[in-house]
């Protein structure tokens, strides 16, 4: 009989892990609290560094799920450990007994409104990175100006910010900001685009090329300084104040659109499940892995594994790689 594995979270990590487990001869059960699969990526427009369409990635992953039991609109109510398996109660009333559980609960975007000084939800033309991607995907957004002359990006919104409760770097936002800055400049070549950053953390393959391109080919202004406050002018535009720390002078600029690069925080569903399974929460609020070098996928509890952004901020390729690794790890666990 095929061994059942519960995968919590139908994002890209969950989908990829399900596909791999299915191929390894297990019987993955994928639980997703929303209707659509793909999580955050499904709402994204283009993925750096190759500007791959996010939709095509999700479609491709979804196509690999044939034969996998997918519970949509379903949440895990409770999980209890049996002798060498877990009994799971789903919100749709079903009870399952599975040999292993993979947490692929991912992340939640930091609520930009918490940074009150940036005026998200208060000013007419302040959006988040996710809002911008959704708009690029064709969802109308009345906060988006007609023909912007100036667009600003605020890096590290809710990241590396002890007062916002997150000391960690969200790692993907710098590159996302550079990508979105370029995309905005491509859409509105007459617009000046400003990126306000604390540090530019462009660590991945091709990221630096993007940065050079943004500087040289797109003339995007990079200003090293965190935005201190945002105000609204009489014509509803956004006035942004920061210090140009390299120049050593305060700067201000009036923009038609301000994009806040909301960081990643741990998905609250993961935090809710953690006590039931006696899983530890790390100092950054994400799930704590056995160790952060060779045991990222291990929870320290038998039969419970992690993949993707539930243990920390991850890029798409990292998440996919972890999902594959997790599938293999679970397979080995079931064999043993």
């Amino acid at each position, binding site marked *: 009989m095929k061994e059942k594995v519960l995968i919590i979270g139908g994002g890209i990590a969950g989908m990829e892990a399900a596909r791999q487990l299915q191929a390894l001869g297990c019987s993955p059960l994928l639980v997703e609290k929303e209707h659509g699969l793909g999580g955050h990526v499904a709402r994204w427009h283009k993925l750096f560094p190759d500007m791959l369409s996010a939709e095509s990635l999700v479609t491709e992953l979804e196509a690999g799920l044939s034969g996998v039991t997918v519970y949509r609109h379903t949440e895990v109510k409770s999980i209890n450990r049996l002798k060498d398996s877990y009994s799971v109660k789903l919100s749709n009333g079903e009870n399952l007994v599975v040999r292993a559980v993979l947490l692929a609960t991912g992340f939640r975007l930091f609520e930009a*409104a918490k940074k*009150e*000084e940036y*005026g*998200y*939800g*208060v*000013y*007419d033309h302040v959006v988040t990175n996710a809002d911008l991607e959704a708009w690029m995907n064709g969802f109308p957004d009345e906060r988006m100006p007609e023909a912007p002359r100036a667009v600003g990006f605020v890096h590290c919104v809710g990241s590396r910010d002890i007062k916002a409760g997150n000391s960690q770097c969200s790692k993907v936002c710098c590159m996302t900001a550079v990508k979105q800055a370029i995309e905005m400049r491509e859409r509105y070549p007459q617009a000046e685009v400003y990126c306000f950053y604390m540090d530019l953390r462009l660590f991945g393959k091709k990221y630096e090329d993007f940065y050079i391109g943004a500087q040289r080919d797109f003339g995007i202004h990079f200003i090293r300084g965190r935005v201190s*406050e945002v*105000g*609204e*002018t*009489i014509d*509803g535009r956004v*006035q942004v104040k920061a210090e140009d720390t390299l120049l050593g002078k305060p700067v201000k600029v009036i923009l038609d659109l301000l994009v806040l690069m909301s960081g990643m925080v741990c998905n609250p569903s993961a935090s809710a499940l953690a006590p039931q399974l006696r899983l530890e929460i790390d100092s950054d609020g994400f799930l704590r892995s056995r160790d952060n070098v060779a045991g990222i996928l291990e929870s320290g509890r038998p039969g419970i594994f992690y993949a993707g952004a539930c243990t920390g901020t991850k890029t798409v390729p990292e998440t996919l790689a972890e999902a594959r690794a997790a599938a293999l790890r679970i397979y080995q666990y079931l064999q043993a």
Partner: protein
Amino acid sequence: MIYKGKQKIWSDYQKEIPDDHWFYARSCIRQNFFPASEKYFLEIGRNVLGRDICDTEHHTTCGGIAYHSDVIPQETAMTIVARQFALMTEMGYRNLVASCITSFGNYTEILETWREFPELEARIREHLWKSCRREFEKPEYLAHASDLMYKWRNDIAERAQYRLVNKDTGEPLDIVEHIGCHYSKMFPHKGVGGAEYPCVLSGMVESWGGRIVDYPERRHCCGFGFRQYLVKANRGYSVSNTYKKFESMEPFHPDGIITNCPGCPYFLDRWQYVIAEQTGKTYGRDGFGIPVFTYEELAGLVLGINPWDLGLQLHQTAVEPLLDKMGVAYVPADKYLGLNREDLLRPELPSVLKCF
């Protein structure tokens, strides 16, 4: 501006303010600058709304000015404040309301410090005992006088003789609110509406029929900044800060400014004269400035109190344009008459800023 967004933030920063029985701590400087404000706070609280507010001549400065000017150490400031608490305790009150924003900030900061460092509180108790043989209870509730006024705003609105509405057009008056820096910037949760979008003053203005102007430099300091003003060599910075605020609010053509701090109305009012003298620029219509009020003054006006009884003749920037818009009845000739109707003599008028 998305009003709903602001409302959401306001709902996050609600503050419990008991309705009655307050020990009132006056400000050092307000009685000189705006002498009727504190008087009318007590008038309105006690006589109009029938609340119990204790006002004693025994209390001193809170030490805030000296503390923020780096003249005295924090422990000294704390001991002074401890004595105020002792007075409050002795008078049988548990709620302290401060007239001054800096005092409010100072009390808040000291209470928070004591909460974090109880051993410091113990030491201060010892200091207080050694110095004046007094003991104190910490106030159960701490409020700024504007918090109370905010709480009473609807009671006042019910009794209003005038509203913050242009009597000719029926349009709400555009009012700029200026919150003192020490109100909630240090401890956002101690202020009504938090630090970024405080609603303590905007709530009053909206209750009384006015409309709030949200301009980009709303958060900016009035320019007092203690050492910025107190050291004459730095006064250029002080007036430059005020100038920056006026430049930012200018396109909105505000009809008046409401403030809740002792220094802010003073500097927003007096610096308009200095800016006018130095740059030739005025910010109101027809060469007038933008009238600046304390919340007590505005409440008094709304309640129909005679502007000259409210001490509005002590303002540098003429208040008459706003009185006229509201339709407040006043006798221009009485402006410079004392309480006993003795002639106070007319001041020399500025060369640029228009005044009566």
